[in-house]
Each structure stands twice: as structure tokens, then as C-alpha cells.
């Protein structure tokens, strides 16, 4: 288990007042499960009908895009959810 910092944009999160969270998880899938279980996000916000991560949302671990749900998390990692359509 590793404690990670999660940035949840208002677009994704349910409780509009929280934007940063500290969560314990050992990989991305666990983290996503935690977010859903603790009611921070709705499952169908992030996943499509086929259960796949929506194409137009990117997850970054310490600034690197990661789409593999079994990607490991380490203590102090920064996990951010960012829409692809931004910038430039």
C-alpha cells in the first residue's frame, strides 16, 4: 500500500469542494476502486459502457500518462486526471 496524492478536477469529482485527496492504493485499479467506493467519483464518469477508461480523459502518474490499470503506485506519487482537450 502506498499513500498517493490525487488531483480530481471538478469535472470528475462528485463533491465540488474537494480537489486534492490523499489515498492509499498499490496500483491504479485499486485507486480508482477507492475513489468510486468512497463516493468521490461516479464509476460511469470515468468508464464507458464496456468498462474501459474513457478515451478523452488522461490519467497522469507523476506527470506521465498511464492507461494501464495495473500500473504500480509508490508512496508520494502524484496522480492527476486531466481532459485531453486542453492547451496549445
Amino acid at each position: 500500500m502506498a499513500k498517493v496524492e490525487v488531483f480530481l478536477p471538478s469535472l470528475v469529482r462528485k463533491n465540488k469542494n474537494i480537489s486534492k485527496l490523499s489515498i492509499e492504493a498499490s496500483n491504479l485499479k485499486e485507486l480508482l476502486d477507492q475513489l468510486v467506493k468512497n463516493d468521490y467519483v461516479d464509476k460511469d464518469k470515468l468508464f464507458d459502457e464496456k468498462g474501459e477508461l474513457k478515451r478523452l480523459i488522461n490519467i497522469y502518474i507523476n506527470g506521465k500518462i498511464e492507461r494501464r490499470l495495473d500500473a504500480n503506485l509508490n508512496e508520494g506519487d502524484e496522480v492527476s486526471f486531466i481532459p485531453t482537450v486542453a492547451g496549445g
Partner: protein
Amino acid sequence: MGGSSLTSKKTSRFIQEHVVGLKCRDCGKEFEIAPLYVCDECFGALDIIYDFEKISFSKSDLKSRENTLWRYKEFLPFEAPEYVSEIKAGFTPLIRAKLLAKKLGLKELYIKNDCVNPTYSFKDRPAALGVTAALSFGMKSVGCASTGNLASATAAYAARVGLPCYIIIPNGIEVSKISQAQSYGAKIVAVEGTYDDANRLATQAAELFNIGMVNINLRPYYVEGSKTLALEVAEQLNWEAPDVFIVPTASGAMFNAICRGFEQLLELGLINHLPKKPVVAQALGCNPISKAFKEGRDYIEVIENPNTIAHSLAIGNPGDGVYVLRRLKQGGLAEDVSDQEIIEGIKLLAQNEGIYAEPAGGVAIAVLKKLVEEGKIQEDERVVCYVTGSGLKTPETLKGKVEEPILIKPQVKYLESILTWQK
């Protein structure tokens, strides 16, 4: 969408009556006018919806209007605040490039010279709209993520409207672009990383610190400014669309906006056909869109470490990438060129037409040359090449690539051996 959608408009200044709302490009969900930029269902990009039935517009209306991008107010969300429009962005010259055309083997070539905007790149257009959007929504500060040119454009308009400006750039962009942006009083943060790192941080900053990041949370308004690049070209060609237009492309925002501009002109009956060959021009060292196009993909593979002298085009994860690919499927081309070809492009343009461009302009010219040589652009097609930024912003580019000045003592005899062409 019902009348209730108009409620928030009353609190936003400058917004025009025929601006109805925002619409998701992917799922079609509609939203009221607000500082939103992606759909809350599918994260697709939002675009402004206009009700063109509410307006009457004819070509002759333009006669009495100012020569700035604001002359096309029917196609823009906002009426210009004076202090934004008075710096006179847009309506840049469309130049018939006879010598360059001849050199390349074309009959009709035009250069849209956007180097001559107030901050010396096309970014004046989207920044003017983006900063107006921030004012309209009552935001207290603005900013952007930038590969260089948007930094100065945003900072200049922020200065004009008296808002603080925060800019996030990747470390290592051209020095002149940074000092220009600093001159306007902006606070610049350089990130040890790529543009995509800067962009991600700016997206987070927009939310955490409530900043109007013009190309992020104000993006639907911002991109409308670049649409005027299509409107001007159509007017300057006496209301005919070109056959081919070439756009130096990074995020794809400008390319999409230009396409949308031509589409809206067609919708209003102001032109009678769309350009048949829109061209995306990229640098080989950062070509996520042209690579996907050539490989027949409908998705982007991120370029993790862009490596090109065209710093302004170094976006490895283009926000509008998938939308650009979608458009190219309907017709169009994408091509990329090496740093050496980019430098040749800059020189070709300067030496034949007297226009000194930054590498993005060199990319457009080099791609034009390549496509003509490959027979993908034909001799009798009418071509418009967008040259989007001035060479004065990137003095590093030609260092060592042009002849050094010849140093002499101040006596006329020393000129004799040099200025032989005078005899």
C-alpha cells in the same frame, strides 16, 4: 435548447445575442454560456453555438468596419471591448507570392502574413478573444500554457485590460519570446519538462487558483479568434475559398478553427464551396498528427520528447489531435519536415517574398514545397499558406545557417573585392 439556457448570459458582459450556448463535439450535449471547456459526460471539446437566423449579415456590411479581426463580429461570441480591439489585431495582408510560386511551380500562391500582428504572431487572435472571455466572466486573472507565442499575446491583452497574467512554459524556448512576454508584466513559470507538462500544470492551476487560462478553461472562446484566419482569407480572395490551405500545426486548435470558419461561411452562403485540401504541416521532430494520419490511425500516439527547432510547434500530445484526424478523413493531407527543410523554408520565403518568419512559417513553406514536389498539390491549384509568426522572435534559428557579416576596415578599397556585382 430552451430559453432558460440564456440566463447566465445576462451576467456575462460583451456576449452577443445570437450566441446560444456551447455544444459537445463528441456527444452533442449542450451547455449554457459559461467558463466551461469540456463535456461533463464524455470529456469532448465544447464549441460555441450561434443562431445565425438571429442576425442579418451581408458582405457590404464590412465596408464600414475596421480593419481588424473584430470586423467579423457576427462570427464571434463577443462584441469587442474598445481597449482590446484598439491594438488592432488581425486583418493582416494576404500577399500574392509570385516569385515563390514560380520557384515551386505553382500558378497561384498566397501568403497570409500573420507575422504583422501586434505581438508578431497569429496568437493575437485567440488571445484577444480569450482575454475578453475572462473579462466577460468577471475573472480576476488570466494566463496560459504556451510554447512561446501565446505567452506574449496573452500578456499583452492582459496588460491592456489590467489583469494579472500567469504563464507556464516549457524550459528552453526562445529567449526573445520570454523577454517579450515579461515586458508586458506577466509572471512566467518555466517547467523542467515539455509543453505537455506545462499544459497539465496550467490545467490544474486554472482550477486550483481560479485563473482564466485562455487556451484551457476559456478554450471555446479562445479558438473563435483563430477562425478569423479563414474569414479574412475568404474576403481577401473576393469571397472564394482557396483549393488548398496549409496550416503549421501543434495542438490543432488553429487548424480546426480555420476549417470551422470556412464551414460557417458556406453555411451563410458567403462562399460556394469548401477548400478541398486542408493541409496540416508539422515538424518531423514533433509530428503526432501527421504520423497518425500517415499510419491511418484515428487516435494520437503521444510524442514524449519533442525534438525540433520549431519550438512553437512542439506539442507532443495535441489537444485537438483526434478532431483534426477526423476532419482529414473527409479530405486533406498532413505532412512533416526536418529541421533542415524548415530552415530552407524560412529562407525560401524570405529570399523570394521578403517575409521573415519563425520556424512555424518555415514548416508551412517546407511542407508546401514537399507536397508540390510529390505531386500532391497541383500546379493549377489556388494555394494559401498561413505564415503565423515573425522571425524576429527566434533569432537563434538562423545562427550559423546564414553567412556571417564581412568585417572590414572603414576604407572604400576594402569593398572592391566584395561588391563585385556592381561592376
